[in-house]
């Protein structure tokens, strides 16, 4: 069994509170998963579940007062949580690339594409400018940007949203990383552009052997664009497994609810299935299942004990409904 490319173990992330006497509450509450070389893994969850926070925690690019309280992130054998900032910088960009959500703001508006791509390439590799330019052109061609030589001289505002997103992917790929983390890369794009970018990402990952961690809230988007799927709820992973298995045979009530809530699953004119209530905020969580307030199958045990994720490799979910009742001792 090969060792995983990325392994996240029991990750707890919290925010430093503004008020001095308030306790710091965990937003990510013990996230564990693995990602293997060349694999496409989708991380699916609603807003507030902590998906983007998980992505930024892996490369420790926090934008507010978040910090890792406990847990480990192991990438290519190195413990990222123990590294010094200088060492982390060498991994970011070079070994882990990131694609962000908003195509309007993820490129620097005052630099041309060439300047940005070259800056990215030259800060990690000591090659000549001309060579770096060739690499940049090659990457732009790989992402199917038309007339790349002309595009290099253009500024981001002269490109359409789809082209900008593809340019961002080119930048993420520029140094041939082992892993690309894409945080909702297509949310701001139209349907046809979305389909293009998704097929581009999966195509590139297959061809270049790059692993992909795709973060989204849309299960139908990743149904055919990922090998494995992780469902995240209230700071924890509640179900994981091969995508096709997970979609056809969802175990956790939340996943089942997500699938049932898709408009395609109800006939027109009939009310859609909706998961009642809202995801609880970090302050409301305690020693019980976070989904209990919204679950139609909740029973006493759900309120008394937090369910755990079974160990193993295949399709598994953390739900009390799935753990068999302990066998009673025969008298």
């Amino acid at each position, binding site marked *: 069994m090969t060792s995983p490319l990325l392994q996240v173990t029991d990750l707890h992330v919290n925010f430093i509170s503004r008020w001095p006497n308030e306790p710091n509450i965990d937003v990510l509450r013990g996230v564990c998963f693995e990602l293997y070389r060349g694999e496409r893994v989708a991380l699916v969850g*609603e*807003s*507030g579940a902590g998906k983007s926070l998980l992505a930024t925690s892996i490369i420790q690019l926090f934008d507010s007062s978040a910090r890792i309280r406990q847990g480990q992130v192991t990438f290519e054998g190195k413990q990222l949580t123990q590294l010094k900032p200088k060492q982390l910088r060498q991994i970011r960009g070079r070994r882990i690339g990131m694609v962000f959500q908003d195509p309007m703001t993820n490129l620097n508006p005052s630099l041309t594409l060439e300047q940005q791509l070259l800056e990215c390439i030259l800060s990690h590799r000591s090659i000549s400018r001309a060579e770096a330019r060739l690499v940049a052109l090659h990457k732009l061609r790989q992402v*199917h940007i*038309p*007339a790349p030589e*002309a595009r290099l001289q253009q500024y981001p505002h002269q490109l*359409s*949203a*789809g*082209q900008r997103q593809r340019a961002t992917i080119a930048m993420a790929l520029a140094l041939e990383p082992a892993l690309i983390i894409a945080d909702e890369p297509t949310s701001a794009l*139209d*349907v*046809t*552009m*979305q*389909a*293009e970018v*998704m*097929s581009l990402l999966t195509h590139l990952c297959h061809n270049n052997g790059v692993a992909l961690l795709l973060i989204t*809230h*849309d*299960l*139908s*988007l990743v*149904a*055919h664009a990922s090998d494995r799927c992780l469902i995240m709820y209230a700071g924890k992973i509640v179900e994981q497994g091969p995508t096709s298995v997970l*979609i056809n045979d969802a175990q956790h009530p939340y996943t089942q*609810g*997500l*699938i049932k*809530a*898709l*408009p*395609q699953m*109800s006939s*027109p*004119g009939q*009310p*859609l*299935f*909706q*998961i009642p209530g*809202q995801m609880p905020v970090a302050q409301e969580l305690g020693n019980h299942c976070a989904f209990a307030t919204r679950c139609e199958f909740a029973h006493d045990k759900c309120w008394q004990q937090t369910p755990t994720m079974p160990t193993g490799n295949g399709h598994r979910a953390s739900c009390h409904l799935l753990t068999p009742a302990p066998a009673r001792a025969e008298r």
Partner: protein
Amino acid sequence: MTPTPNLLKISNLHKSYQAPNQPRHWWPSLSNTASASQIKAINGLNLSIAKGETLCVVGESGCGKSTLARLVMGLEQPDQGHISYQGNNISSLKHKQRQDYRQRMQMVFQDPYTALNPRLTVLHALVEPLLYHQPQLNRQNAIDQAMAQLLAVGIDPALAQRFPHQLSGGQRQRINIARALMVQPEFIVADEPLSALDVSIQAQILNLLAQLQQRQQLTFLIFSHNLAAVEHMADRVAVMYEGQICEIASREKIFNHPQHPYTKALLAASPQIYQAPNAHHKLVGDVPNRIPTQQGCSLQDRCPKAFETCRHQTPKSIEMTTGHWVACHLVADPTSTDPIPDTQVKLEKGNHHDPSH
């Protein structure tokens, strides 16, 4: 059976904008080159909506949806053409005369966060329109009505004193809907009401809209590019591209028998959970930069089936079957001469084609 009367009718609508980053002079422009820097957002659009129906306009960014929404709501004036509401021409009304219609037609915006004044509590946002139009109400009465509306959209009244930044996206969108309903409208325009929301929350909002429509006999004009939601909600669907309607039909006909190449491409690109993506009807290239004076069909650069006539003549909208209108030369005359070489070649070439000159 008498046909349902048209609530809203749009005829031959045109609207252009000055292209951004063009030098603006305060002296009147004498040359014709000024027109070259104009962007034609709406280009001869015709549409009608019957009372009580839900018409969904499907299109991607740049097709002019937001412009159309703003024109219908009177936030902008068209260059040419009419918009009439219950038979009265409202497109040329001045602000004061428009007030009557303001209460009958309301709008729900795309981004639930910027659509709310960040300094007003939820309750205040709902009470304000009520007190503005009916100042004779006393404060408690107005507050009671606002609370009732909050319950009607499924918001816990305990949240009434919260500010927008303390609410989730779904909750904000409900507040937006509640605010629009405070003035008791009969017609609601929703500009991408679901795009900023998670898929699981979209279900809640769709259900809410359907419920409200039934309860209050509302007419909806919904702009969206989310085909799954549209399929669930619409009575009729219009497909919009580059300021024109390319196809309009009942929901069943659009989704089961689409005719226009753009409609087919959109349906093929829409993510499906159980079906694998269909690359058969792909469009090539990106949404172009809207060259206004280009002749012919606006889809000519991206359509895999474009041929010579498409480059010279704008296709007219033809009624294929009852209520199903399509504007496409190929559909109008399937046996057209001078077809282009096969689709694969176009697709391949298209990847290196620069559409922006």
